[in-house]
């Protein structure tokens, strides 16, 4: 299979390396049985970016997040987050990241506060009550604190999910399809939250999505994954600039996917 990254329009800027890079992947591959989910990905994300990772279903986006969050081990190549190797220094990586998987429900039988207290303990948070209040306050959902999560709507659960991911003030926040199943109001709130997490708390955001409208609103940089290969990576501004003939990010995405 030809490397489509070489066929992409010459809009790519060299991926930043070394200083300022908070996520570094070098030749990362992953196999599930006989099939390759990822084929030698080289990707760098700089500190402070909101990185939108695009790709169709099954392209390998979630596998990439699972590797970066230490859930799975790459079968080839190496990856570092905040300077720590995801395999050799798993615990260091885990201390530095926050993660919200797709469709997380949390523990139904516990209240939001109890859920957050549990994850805060596991994360080694120093002042747990304060961290919980801060996280809930940041997300504007203090009123949910003492209600059982089992009674929550999808949007409420999502906010508590984000609260657990930011309790320990991680440097990088991984969000896997965060808008999945949310209504338009929920999507808008989430978008605002992501922007504020980045601007006010200085978190680098790595977000898997296939909602291009969201990417075009919040992301500073995008990467496009197709069949396990990274075929494109650049800032959103340069992407829009380098594809003057395309009317929208959706058109650009389709063109990239078509090679």
């Amino acid at each position, binding site marked *: 299979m030809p490397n489509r990254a070489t066929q992409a329009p010459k809009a790519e800027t060299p991926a930043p390396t070394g200083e300022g890079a908070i996520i570094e992947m070098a030749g990362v591959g992953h196999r599930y049985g006989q099939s390759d989910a990822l084929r030698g990905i080289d990707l760098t994300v700089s500190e402070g970016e909101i990185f939108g990772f695009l790709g169709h279903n099954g392209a390998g986006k979630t596998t990439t997040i*699972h590797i970066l*969050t*230490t*859930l*799975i*081990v790459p079968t080839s190549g190496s990856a570092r987050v905040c300077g720590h190797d995801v395999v050799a220094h798993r*615990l260091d990586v*885990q*201390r530095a*990241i926050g*993660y919200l*998987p*797709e*469709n*997380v*429900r*949390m*523990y*139904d*039988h*516990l209240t939001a506060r*109890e859920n957050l207290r*549990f*994850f805060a*303990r*596991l*994360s*080694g*948070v*120093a002042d747990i009550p304060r961290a919980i209040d801060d996280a809930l306050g940041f997300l504007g959902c203090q009123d949910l604190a003492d209600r059982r999560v089992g009674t929550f709507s999808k949007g409420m659960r999502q906010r508590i999910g984000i609260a*657990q991911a930011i309790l320990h003030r991680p440097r990088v926040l991984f969000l896997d399809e965060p808008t999945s199943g949310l209504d338009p109001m929920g999507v808008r709130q989430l978008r605002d939250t992501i922007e504020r997490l980045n601007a006010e708390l200085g978190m680098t955001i790595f977000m898997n999505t296939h909602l291009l409208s969201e990417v075009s609103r919040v992301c500073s940089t995008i990467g496009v994954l197709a069949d396990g290969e990274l075929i494109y990576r650049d800032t959103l501004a340069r992407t829009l600039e380098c594809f003057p003939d395309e009317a929208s990010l959706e058109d650009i995405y389709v063109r990239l996917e078509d090679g």
Partner: protein
Amino acid sequence: MTSGHPHPAIAIAGHEYRSATRNRVLAILVVGMVLVAAASVTIASYDFKAQIADYNSYVAQAKAAGVAVTAPPQLFPLQLLRPVIEYVQIIGAVFAIGLGYLTVARERTGNTLRLLLTRPVRNTDLMFGRLLGAGALIVTILGATALISVFLIGVLGGTWLGGGDLLRVAITFLTGSLYMLIFYALGVWLSARSRALVNGLVVALVAWLMVVLIIPQIGDTMDPDNQVPGGLFAALQVQKADEKKVLAHFSTYERIRNDLEETSLTKHFERLTFAVTGIKDKYNGVSLATVAADKRGDIAWLGVYAALLATLMWSGIRRESVTGKDT
């Protein structure tokens, strides 16, 4: 990890304990088990008290009539615990499997395993946390059952247990906790290995059926003399000497029957606890050291089962961790 905070394993244990106590099905199982245990001790205590009253009445009458009094019957209050131990064997094992299943189901339903595995928690913390939480819950349940049993024996049976007997009760119920914890590990392991959760539960219950009910009964059901009420040989009017000659032809069969029984965790638990409590008559009045020496094989088997299931549970957690597959 910040100093002054609970170790992750302790946090996980606390979480397991809290989660289990909020599950209605488990609560009903626990209350049910405690109630049937209390009911059985109540009935046995009344019977025990009646036997003592009968003997005392006999002594009074014998003395009044100037007749020599025969030795008192062998009445041992710890024997009143027999039905409670049997409930632990059967219902306790089911409860523990259910607890293990719910541990896995909770994470899978809420999609929270991935959150757990991306926290700075070692696999050993996860395993020991789960075992510790389940162990604490089981000890609470069996502790409550033991206290109620001792109380009922005292109040209804008219016999308050002394220090030595209380120690035997404690050993029995701690052994019961280990026994249940082994079934908990089985429930976690099989549920974690199954793509469809319910399959793991079904396999675990089949294992329970084999280990708790079928294999221990094999000795009785495969015994040729048990095939006819009153005994096969007696029904055929076979003399004892001839019976032995017949059985000599089935020595391999007998050995297989015994070996099968030996594979049952429940059988070893029963042999050990029945010896400790003196439910098995030959161990009445025998010191704990002698019991331990005599039952070292059963103790070793319990240890082997505990180590085996802990290893399997560990491999299950490692697999979850490495593959990122939901439990």
